[in-house]
């Protein structure tokens, strides 16, 4: 077997389907004229290829083509109906999920902290504590009792008076907690 035989055998499949270019077809037929081995190979290949094809032709779906197509299109419609339903249901489910997340998240940040911590600070109601990574500072000042009452504190003092207090400020200047001077009672909501 020489290079021409290798090439001829490589083109057998395309030849069997009639898909060789005219020049290739002429070349391979010329080669077969000269080469008995490749001629034998062609006959064997072509014969067996024919058997494969006729074997395949015996296998046909039992469902008639038109019915099979109708069934297929009906199933596409089912898929589309399911998709349209999900187009309505998915946003609704997303809204419900968002509401659930908010419901879980809001109480945590809004729940008033009652009672003083170990340093005597009482958290401002509905304000989250200073984050662990946040720089804080304490400032002493006079605060109107009315302002503390307005913030939601319960103060055992005259509402028109002023009280001396330390204020815990967050990095952004927000008031997070208040500590009153000795002998004055400050309570958050829930105490």
């Amino acid at each position, binding site marked *: 077997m020489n290079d021409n035989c290798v090439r001829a055998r490589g083109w057998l499949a395309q030849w069997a389907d009639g898909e060789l270019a005219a020049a290739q077809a002429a070349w391979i037929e010329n080669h077969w004229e000269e080469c008995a081995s490749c001629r034998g190979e062609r006959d064997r290949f072509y014969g067996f290829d024919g058997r494969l094809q006729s074997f395949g032709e015996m*296998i046909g779906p039992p469902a008639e083509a038109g019915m099979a197509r109708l069934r297929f299109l009906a199933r596409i419609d089912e898929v589309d109906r399911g998709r349209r339903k999900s187009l309505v249901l998915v946003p609704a489910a997303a809204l419900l999920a968002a509401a659930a997340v908010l419901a879980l998240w809001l109480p945590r940040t809004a729940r008033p902290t009652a009672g003083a911590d170990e340093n005597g600070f009482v958290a401002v109601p509905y304000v989250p504590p200073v984050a662990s990574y946040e720089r804080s500072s304490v400032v002493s000042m006079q605060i109107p009792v009315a302002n503390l009452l307005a913030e939601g504190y319960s103060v055992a003092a005259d509402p028109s008076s002023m009280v001396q207090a330390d204020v815990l400020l967050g990095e952004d200047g927000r008031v997070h907690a208040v500590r009153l001077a000795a002998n004055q009672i400050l309570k958050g909501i829930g105490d």
Partner: protein
Amino acid sequence: MSSDEERLFVATGCGHSGELPARTEAAWWFEELRVPVYRYLVCSGLGSADAEEVVQETFLRLYRHLARRGSRTNLRGWIFEVARNAARDRRKSAGWQRTVALDPAAGIVDQRAGPEDEAIRQERGRRLQAAIERLSAPQRECILLRISGLRYREIAEAVGINVASVGELVERATARLSEDIP
């Protein structure tokens, strides 16, 4: 433009497959490959009813793929790959264990033949299927696709190799099959 896209263009008059509604394109592929995919599945050992169901599943997946604007590269190969995987899943399922045809040639029926001829054909079919099972995986794949009615050029597209390589695989496979089934 691939040869499939050209034919789709001729059939639908649409300039590019991506411009077609997914339903139209899926229906075209269904018409084009329903029978080859069915033959491929039966030759792979699925019973007739299972094969028909897998054909429907395969083209529904194609529809979803097209509707999602999935890749259109080598859809012919994609379809046979999906069919092959769906058939494997079905074989694994409990339901298939119960209903699998004991006779692998049960789906092979020639309506034109009489009972005797039919028996001979079925016997030949069984022997051929058994011989195909003994081929290497690439040879078996090419032979099954050829039996399914694909041209060698189409087999090359489906398998993702060049036509000459398909020719070599089939040539070796047919040499071996000729020995097994003289």
